[in-house]
């Protein structure tokens, strides 16, 4: 039985690129400040080498790595559970059976709001924090999925149904 994987919104790719660009800009800011305050070891690593390395890393992360990460991100909702594929280098496929979901959370950061996307986090009683977070969803899709999941969970034909809140 194969799973029907769904890709996140295309704007999720731009979101990932902008996010990695922002982290690289922060590193650049630190480098520049250290250069002007004299902390930067000019004699050991000349500035042009650092600049070149920064540019290459920025190009690599923002262009190549972010889109690769986007390509490998996919989610699926089957009758039994929610699945999520993630990771460009370290791949991970996570599966949560529907009747183990404890609560569902809709999340949207400032940056995500600019790109018009949102995340949906699902929590189980298993170890570790946020258990399954689907990124790059349209806010409407996310809300719809959330309501749909919650109704499914609430209507489970479960003898211990009072135990799942």
């Amino acid at each position: 039985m194969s799973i029907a994987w769904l890709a996140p919104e295309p704007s999720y790719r731009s979101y990932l690129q902008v996010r990695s660009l922002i982290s690289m800009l922060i590193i650049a800011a630190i480098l520049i400040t250290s250069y002007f305050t004299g902390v930067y070891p000019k004699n050991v690593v000349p500035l042009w080498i650092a600049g070149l390395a920064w540019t290459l890393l920025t190009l690599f992360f923002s262009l190549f790595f972010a889109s690769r990460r986007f390509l490998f991100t996919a989610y699926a909702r089957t009758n039994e559970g929610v699945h999520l594929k993630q990771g460009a280098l370290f791949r991970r496929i996570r599966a949560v059976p529907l009747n183990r979901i404890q609560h569902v959370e809709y999340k949207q950061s400032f940056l995500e709001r600019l790109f018009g996307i949102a995340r949906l986090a699902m929590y189980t009683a298993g170890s570790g924090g946020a258990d399954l977070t689907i990124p790059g969803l349209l806010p409407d899709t996310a809300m719809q999925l959330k309501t749909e999941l919650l109704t499914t969970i609430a209507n489970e034909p479960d003898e211990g149904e009072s135990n799942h809140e």
Partner: protein
Amino acid sequence: MSELTWQRTPLITIAFFLFKQLKQLVTNISNLIPAFAAIFVIGKDSVWVLFGLAGAYLLYVIISAVLTQRFFLYAIADDAVHLRTGIFNRKHLTLNYERIQQAEIHQVWYFRPFKLTVLSVDSAGSAGKEVQIPGLKMELAQDLRQRMLAESVSPSGQRQESAAADTKEDAARITKHFPVAEIIRAGIIDNKLFVLLAVLIYPISQLDLLEDYVVPWVQQHLAWFNSESAWIIGAGIAVGSLAVLFLAAIAVSLLTYHDLTLTIEGERFQAKSGALSIRTLSFRYPKLQAVYVRRNLRARLLQRSVVTVSQLQPRAAQGGNPAAQQFTLPVVDAAFFAEFREQLRLPPAAEVNWQRLSPLALLGSSLWLALLAPVIATLLFFAAESGWPGIAATLAGWILMQTMVVLSWRNYGYSFVSRTTTPAEQWFVVRRGIFSRNENWYPRRKVQQIDVQQGPWLRLLGFSHLILHTAAGSETLRYLPSENAQSLQQQWVDEIAKNSHRWM
């Protein structure tokens, strides 16, 4: 909801709150070390600051214990316990019996003359609250525990069915008493001395305690003493103190596990033990999330195992620190283990078909070792100028590490087994250990989420790790063929989703 009758705990419970505060101080003492350092710097000239602070702390502890007792109210309803606590921040806590994972009745030594107990219960929920009600009368505490662990109030028919099962199984009540000889074995198996030794050896070797202090002192006081026999005496003292520590560890387990009695009544498991303070831990089978079987080298020589049963522990799972109280049988011999397995619904040992790891799993760590060893040898030879002994030591270290890697690979195993006799239960089990043999058993239907993970190295070899997150912690099945791991993941998700039995 009917009227709640709020009750206050007896006055003696002030002592309980006092001890709780002091215990908190002891556990937090490492965090306070910077503060202590500051105090000592200030208090160098004026000793009264130290005494003042200590006195103020003591006064604070006493006053807060008295006030905590005054403001501690509890009420017992049919389906829940209500607590109202807090001096300034009032807290009202309602704990439903249904959510309780395990209950513990602790007859603390200073409560025993008054025939009072402390009742602690662990509840489920993300905060993983542990609730303690001190100063309950024994009968009341037992009655309360009975009610908490009774069949939970589930809709209609279900209740009768399980009640019937309960009465039927009452006949099959099992009581096991552990004699003193077994408890001494438990003390040897669970001897913290070996951990202590490993921690202590390094600082002791750095201190030169023997040469700087002990030898001069001995020479001063015993004129006939020459420095040659000082070493023998020193070694004698070291061995003697280790023996004392060893015996002390056994004494501790004799005190905590004195008169250990296990009672299994239907689905209810109960362990009672203790010489000074008597602890009674109980839980119901449906709350079980994991069974750990530990056999370290000493246990293997003594042919015993340590069996721990774990319930839902969000706090332990997140913080990584084991919960305060776990249902543990510290020494189980083979004959009783077979019986206990039956009670825990584990399949017999002979039915477990252990799956081994692929030899390719050895490749990664072996490669690292093989790369690292020449580097260290070169560094030692040229930079540290250690000569041939350095290279020989590296070689020996390399062989040792490689043997450990191979041993841990050889002893690793996993299996998916089901018990066929009713009540059936499906499990997955992971076995690991270098010199020890540890088995972790988890009920398969209680898995919370399943991951398939694959890094670049694993992708190259065509393997994946399968990580199973349960409510009692995570377990990794390493180096499964990728397709195998993914189909297992799907298969298990389907299986769990179709299983509508309660999991907690």
